[in-house]
Every structure is written in structure tokens, then in C-alpha cells.
């Protein structure tokens, strides 16, 4: 996942942004060897198959990334209080993704009318990320990702989550006391702080092509604000069962004009509250979680319009569920999320970015994953987005647009994964669209069908 788009993208219309964001957000990355170095534990302690977390991995994150088993550089003051506790070696690591993408039908040349772009694309790298991921001080840790994106030729701050976590126990004796973690998160992407792989930032698919066409629309909580906001929130995790969080986000866009002005786009106005509740039950080798989350945000469309006056309002409400079975040889994960977004586009209607004042956008994602001995496995996923027809928001355009002015898109994702080592993944992924931007056939009015965007994607993913 990369942080920012080149400025030129921000000057385009919303539908282009939608596609670009969909492409950008197809990148996923987490699973950091510096955590393994810091804890002395194998990747398998925290991950089923990276980046998906095990129950222990969730505890590690909720505890602020601080569990350590390496020599510390320490300091105390004259009262004996600790003033420093730092890993003797910095918890840094590197991630490299090299990929090959092949779409059903080549895309049009971006400059020569009627010509086609190259059929098949190797990205070396698709993405290179540097991480600082680990303890900063007692009860404080950081996950900081700096990413170079090969397609965008851009280097910048990617997903970042800095957190403080305090653990305490209260109540009765050992067998009936309560364990509580109270934490604070400072992050730059709604849901990047979450520990279940159902929410968008770390949801399935964990990696995808950076160059294949993507559907025109996605909800705000589904990545549209990633790396363009800053959030400060508090969370509680009670008895390994109940999770609750409230985080407020505000615009924090890197690059482009500063202070933020009309040349930016999709700029959050004021504070946007993000909320999250979840309940997890563990038994034997199983865990089941159900939850809900949401984001309410006021947005200045920007795109040449001043960041003043009336705004668009987006209210995202989502439900999610996750099941995991972690056996000695067999691992199974089921993931589900449903996001409902109500849009009140007061500003966009005036600015002629949208025709309707009230729109809705609904996204469903389901996936099932299996792994044998964490070495070989596969996944099947289904995705479906439906929404209101809007002549201005979803205009007709070759490849990226919609002849019916409708964002409805759905399809399937199949993956085969082979991990010769716990930190190395070789992946073959196929994305098949049943519907793309409203239709199955000739969806863009230029003769392109949804299946023309079907994508075969080969990935080499190394973490070290």
C-alpha cells in the first residue's frame, strides 16, 4: 500500500481518483521481521500466513508492539524511575514485492489514440518498504512504513500506527480477575490500527496488482482516506473478548499545496469520528469474532473548489466477522465484512461533481483461506459493490468510466500461495469480474467488457 498519489492525479476528476485509489489500495503489507527479531519468536507466533494475525498477534499489537526479548539500552533518573528502554538493535526491516500483471485485454495507450499499452507488466519493484516496527519505550511502540512505489515512482510515508498501551488486572483472584488493556493510537489510516483482518486496511486480498484497472467507487472507510488523515484515538481490550475504540481523524495530506487548498481533493473537514466494537471468543484451536465499525466524515471535494463552506457528508457503518482455525497442519480463515455508506453530497452537487444530493454505496467482501503447514494454500474471495446511479459522479469514459453511470462491480478472487520460508510468499492471483462499473458487457460504452479487466497477477513477496 502506498501513501500518496502524484499531484497530477489530485487535479483530475473524482472518477479518475476513484480508479487510482482502487489501484493504490490494492496494495497490502504487514508482517515484519523486526518484530520477530525483537521478540525472538517465529513469524508463526503472530501470523497464520502473513499478514493475517493469530490471536497472539492480535495481543502483541494491542499491547503496543512492546513485547521484547533483546537486550535493552536503559536509563533511570535519581528516583530510580526508568527513563529509557530501547532495543539495543533498531527494529528495522525491509519488504520487497516484485510482480507481473496480465489483464484480459490490454489497456488503451495513454497518449496515442487507438493504440494499446504493452500487454503484460513487470514491476520491479512493485513496492519496497522500510519499516521501523517495534518498541519505542516501555508501553509504547511504533509501526512505521516508508514505501517506494514502483508504478508511481514515488517514495513516502505509508501505513503508520504509533501506540501506547497500558495493561492492568483488576477484580478477584487469579482465576476470576479481569485483564484490561487501555491504549492510545496515533495513526494515518482508519482501520490500520485494527487487529482483525476483516477491516479494510489489512483485509483480503493482502496484495494486488498496482496497474490493473479497478472499480470506480469505494467507501471512505475502505481506504479513501488512507495516508491523507491523522487520527488520535483510545481503545480498550477487556478479558481477551471485548474491544472498543474511538478515534478522531483530521486531514493530513502530504505533498501538493500547503496549507491545504483547492488543488487538493477529498479533504476531511474538521474531525471525523471512527468507532469500532468487536467481540472475540476463543475455544480449542478456534477463534470467532464479530464486530461493527464506522466512520462519519465531512469532506471538501476540492478539485479546484475552495475548501470552504458546505461539505459532503459520508456516514459509513459496517459489520464484520472472522473465524480462524489454527491446527498443527491445517489452518482455515473465513473473513466477512459489509460496509454501508450514506452520502449527502451538498458540496459536490453545487460543484457539479455529482448529480444527486443523496447517494448510497454498499460493499460486501467475503473470503475463505486455507493453508497446509503454513507452506502451501489458497484463498477464494468474493466482492460486490453496489451504489446509486449518478451521471456526474460516474460519467462515461473509456476503461475507467461507466456507460450507465453506475458503480456496481462484483467478482471473484482466487489465489494460490506457496511459502518456502515463513517470510517469503510466492503468489498467483486471478481476479475475475462479473460486473464492472455497472455492466457485464460494454460497461464503458467503448466496447470494453468486465471480463476484459480480469487480471492474472504473479507476486514474489519477501520480508527480511
Amino acid at each position, binding site marked *: 500500500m502506498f501513501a500518496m498519489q502524484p499531484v497530477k492525479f489530485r487535479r483530475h476528476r473524482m472518477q479518475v481518483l476513484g480508479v487510482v485509489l482502487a489501484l493504490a489500495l490494492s496494495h497490502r503489507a504487514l508482517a515484519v521481521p523486526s518484530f520477530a527479531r525483537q521478540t525472538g519468536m*517465529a513469524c508463526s507466533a503472530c501470523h497464520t500466513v502473513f499478514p493475517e494475525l493469530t490471536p497472539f498477534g492480535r495481543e502483541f499489537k494491542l499491547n503496543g508492539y512492546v513485547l521484547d526479548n533483546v537486550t535493552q539500552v536503559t536509563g533511570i533518573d535519581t528516583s530510580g524511575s526508568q527513563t529509557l528502554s530501547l532495543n539495543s538493535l533498531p527494529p528495522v526491516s525491509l519488504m520487497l514485492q516484485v510482480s507481473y500483471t496480465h489483464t484480459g485485454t490490454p489497456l488503451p495507450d495513454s497518449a496515442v489514440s487507438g493504440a494499446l499499452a504493452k500487454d503484460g507488466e513487470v514491476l520491479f519493484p512493485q513496492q519496497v518498504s522500510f519499516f521501523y516496527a517495534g518498541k519505542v519505550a516501555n508501553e509504547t511502540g511504533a509501526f512505521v512504513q516508508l514505501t517506494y512505489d514502483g508504478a508511481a515512482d514515488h517514495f513516502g510515508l505509508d501505513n503508520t500506527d504509533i501506540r501506547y498501551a497500558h495493561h*492492568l*488486572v*483488576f477484580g478477584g483472584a487469579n482465576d476470576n*480477575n479481569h*485483564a484490561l488493556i487501555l*491504549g492510545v493510537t496515533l495513526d494515518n489510516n482508519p482501520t490500520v490500527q485494527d487487529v482483525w483482518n476483516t477491516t479494510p486496511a489489512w483485509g483480503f486480498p493482502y496484495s494486488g496488482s498496482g496497474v490493473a484497472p479497478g472499480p470506480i467507487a469505494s467507501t471512505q472507510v475502505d481506504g479513501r482516506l488512507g495516508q491523507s488523515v491523522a487520527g488520535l484515538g483510545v481503545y480498550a481490550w477487556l478479558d481477551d473478548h471485548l474491544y472498543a475504540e474511538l478515534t478522531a481523524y483530521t486531514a493530513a495530506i502530504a505533498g501538493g499545496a500547503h496549507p491545504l487548498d483547492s488543488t487538493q481533493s477529498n479533504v476531511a473537514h474538521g474531525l471525523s469520528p471512527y468507532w469500532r466494537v468487536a467481540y472475540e471468543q476463543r475455544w480449542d*484451536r478456534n477463534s470467532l469474532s464479530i464486530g461493527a465499525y464506522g466512520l462519519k466524515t465531512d469532506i471538501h471535494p476540492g478539485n479546484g473548489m475552495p475548501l470552504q463552506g458546505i461539505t459532503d457528508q459520508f456516514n459509513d457503518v459496517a459489520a464484520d466477522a472472522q473465524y480462524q482455525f489454527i491446527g498443527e497442519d491445517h489452518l482455515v480463515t473465513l473473513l466477512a465484512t459489509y460496509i454501508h455508506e450514506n452520502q449527502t453530497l451538498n458540496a459536490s452537487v453545487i460543484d457539479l461533481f455529482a448529480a444527486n444530493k443523496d447517494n448510497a454505496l454498499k460493499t460486501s467482501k467475503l473470503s475463505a483461506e486455507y493453508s497446509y503447514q503454513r507452506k502451501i494454500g489458497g484463498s477464494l474471495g468474493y466482492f460486490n459493490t453496489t451504489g446509486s446511479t449518478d451521471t456526474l459522479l460516474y460519467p462515461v469514459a473509456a476503461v475507467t468510466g461507466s456507460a450507465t453511470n453506475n458503480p456496481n462491480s462484483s467478482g471473484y478472487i482466487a489465489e494460490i500461495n506457496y511459502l518456502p520460508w515463513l517470510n517469503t510468499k510466492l503468489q498467483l492471483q486471478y481476479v475475475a469480474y462479473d460486473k464492472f462499473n455497472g455492466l457485464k458487457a460494454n460497461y464503458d460504452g467503448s466496447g470494453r467488457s468486465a471480463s476484459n479487466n480480469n487480471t492474472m497477477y504473479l507476486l514474489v513477496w519477501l520480508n527480511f
Partner: protein
Amino acid sequence: MRKAAVIGIIVCAAIGSGTAMRVAGADSSLTPAQEATLKQTLYTCGVCHGGNGQSVSPTFPNLAAQSAPYVSLQLHAFKDQSRADPDAQAYMWGMAARLDDVQIDALAQHFANLPAAAGVPGGAALIAVGKSIYTLGIPARQVPPCATCHGPKGEGIGPFPRLAGQHSPYLLKQLLVIQSVLRTAPVMHGVIKDLTRTQMDAVATYLQSL
């Protein structure tokens, strides 16, 4: 937003000041700093082994009522990496790397003093076979009774671990990794070298039921 964070920290501090984590059989000779470290360490142990020493997942053994000398020996073996079965490497080498002798003794004592997990019923036929092997051995194959070292009810004796009420998948896995010498256990290598997987499963199922 900042107000919310500040409130969170205040609530956290307020509840934290009233914490009542009890360390079972806590050694009064521990300094306050050692007590604090032990509490934090016990919390970490509890993530996998359960806050009360009774784990949810059979990947991780129950430690409640485990023999203190056994826990101490194993923690030292994880620390010096002489116990090297796959899960030991994946989980416990890191966990035990920075434990000192005082902490190891305190942890061992803590778990020994916790109430044992209740037995889990299993298939009657398998349990009968397991009980026979456990209490009588298999004389024809020179397999001695397990009870000789582990106690008539699997309660453990000194360095020989408590087995009663332990997760059967965990026990089976240990028998397998000991038999294949992925986990070094000199006495056990000879004792179980001829046990079949079915026999191991029977013994494990019996012990889990105790």
C-alpha cells in the same frame, strides 16, 4: 480528540492504581521491582497459557499445578536452547531469552500453586487402552508404566511433569517430537521408542481425562 486521549490516560491511571494481580505463592523475598516484573511476565505467559494457567488452545500446554522443578527445567532449557522442538523455537526461545534465575523460580512456583485444570472426558475404549499403558506399561515391548515417574494419577513428581488434565493434542505432539528426537528427553527416548501413534493417542486421551 485530545480530550478523549487525556481522559483515556486518566482512566487508565486510575484503574491501574487499584490493580490487584495476585501472584500465586509469591515469594516475599522478591523486591518490589521483581514483583512488578513478575506480574508483567505472568501477563505475557497468560496470553497463550491462560491467565489462570489453563490454556484455551491445545497448541499451548496447561501450566496450572505443573510441577515447579519441571517448569524451571524447561524454562532453562528454552533459555539455553537445549529444548529445540518446533514450537519451542517458534515461541519459547524468545519468551525465555531474558528470564533470570529468580524469575524462573518465581514463575515455576506461581504455576505450581494454581488450581489444576479439570479433566476432559474422551472415548471410553481409547481411555481404557491408555490407562492400561499408563499404569501397567506394555511388558511385551519393554515399555515401562508411565505412572512410575509421573505418578499414579499423572500428578507429576519433581522433574517429571504433571500430565493429568493436559490437552491430549499437546501430549501427543510431545510424544511424537520426543520420539523423533526433535525434543531431547533422555529418559523418554528409550521408554517410548516403540510406542505407536495410536498408543500415544490413547495415553494422551486418558491423561486428559484425569
